[in-house]
């Protein structure tokens, strides 16, 4: 399915050179707005089947407005999951609202899946799916390291061999950046008020040194 891209700059989902950018059309019924200013560009877009807005840690409602649980239109949010400065994963979280137009959702899914990306649909909550589940686990791993539960190596080995994870939590944080973890988990802690998201000491230290 054809799609057009409006690039507001600094996209984490589709950085310069990504194949998704080069395959876009000039004009199309589906518009994908990428970059840190994606939400602000929304008002200038009219008469499209679906509009996809790249999200950071904020909710889609920030850009569309909300009204007593009846919000929803042809505008969807999305973010391609990415840890720190590691390359983006193949997974896109596609955010809908209670009254999102089903045809817009189907068109958005078709565009993303057509580009070879995996799509997981979720409602408009802070942290969506992956960050919401991953960050408490990473904070717990950092806290338990401080508390001497096991060495970093043994913790990582346990989760790799015991659960088949591709890498353990400490190796993952070292590869993708503790300061980047701090930024995401701090934003979720503010949004959700749940202590499980409060940045672990080691993440705070790394942030202060960055």
């Amino acid at each position: 399915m054809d799609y057009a891209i409006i690039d507001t700059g600094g996209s984490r989902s589709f950085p310069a050179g990504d194949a998704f950018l080069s395959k876009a059309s000039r004009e199309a019924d589906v518009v994908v707005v990428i970059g840190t200013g994606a939400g602000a560009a929304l008002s200038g877009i009219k008469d499209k089947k679906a509009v996809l807005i790249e999200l950071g840690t904020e909710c889609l409602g920030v850009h569309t407005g909300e009204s007593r649980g009846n919000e929803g239109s042809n505008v969807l949010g999305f973010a391609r999951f990415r840890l720190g400065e590691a390359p983006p994963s193949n997974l896109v979280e596609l955010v809908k609202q209670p009254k999102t137009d089903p045809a817009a959702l189907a068109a958005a899914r078709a565009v993303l899946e057509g580009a070879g990306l995996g799509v997981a649909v979720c409602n408009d909550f802070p942290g969506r799916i992956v960050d919401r589940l991953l960050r408490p686990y990473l904070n717990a791993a950092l806290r338990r390291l401080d508390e001497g539960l096991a060495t970093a190596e043994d913790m990582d080995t346990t989760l790799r061999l015991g659960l088949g994870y591709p890498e353990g939590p400490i190796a993952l944080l070292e590869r993708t950046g503790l300061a980047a973890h701090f930024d995401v988990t701090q934003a979720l802690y503010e949004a959700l008020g749940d202590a499980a998201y409060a940045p672990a000491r080691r993440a705070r230290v790394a942030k202060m040194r960055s």
Partner: protein
Amino acid sequence: MTDIKTVGVAGCGTMGAGIAIVAARAGFRTIVYDTREEALAKARKQTESFFARSVERGKLAAEQLPKIISHLEMSSDLKKLAACDIVIEAVFEDLGVKHALFAQLDKVCPPHTLFASNTSTISITEIAGGSGRAERFVGMHFCLPAQLMKLVEMSPGLNTAEDTFARAWEFCKALGQTPVKTQDNPGFILNYFLIPFNNDAIRLVESGVAEPAEIDKAIKGALGYAMGPFELLDLIGMDTQLLLCEAMHGLTHEPRAACPPLVKRMIAAGRLGRKTGRGFHAYKDSKMYGA
């Protein structure tokens, strides 16, 4: 190098039978004890068919098979375990049951015999306290199925002697397993992280963030996990997840370890997971996944 030659396994459920396979395969004389004759017969069948398949798949040389089988003994007589240098307990997860077993074993086994528990949620120090030999006691938590999973979480109790831990560690390596050292903490490492992670996923469904299939897809696609949390929970079973949560939360009072109400509703609705054909996902065929 290990000084251990003969291994006892007390309790021959799925876990005990798996540990017995690991010990026999590594060349140890292995004695499996259980009070239930029918369980012993079943374990004997399971282990022999496992080794036969290992030969078929070229994982085990055919000429080794008779030796391994002859080194693997099943008995309902506790006194047979007197010949063991280490006894690994894999009975029901109940402190009283474990204490009763170890009290008997302490009378039967010579002083040098090490005691180990495969418990996943009970404190090693607590079990050791009723064993009569707390200084020669160690936690050895194998993963299910033990014969395929290399990981063993090893933990000393408060009174475990350093020499005991070192002997058990060398023995674990001689089994061909990969030991990791953890404190004697509820859930050790694996369950400490896994139980709350799965509960968090269930709470996302409870609060309407996304459907289970979408969450599985997101976690697998974004993090490269082999299974999504709901695929894994359907294998574990809601009844088991409830027991794990109750054990963990009872000890830690951590909110993430508390059992989400949806689990109890699913148990009431008969949606236990793969074994009943329906959990968070629906399955056409429920065989092979019995608990």
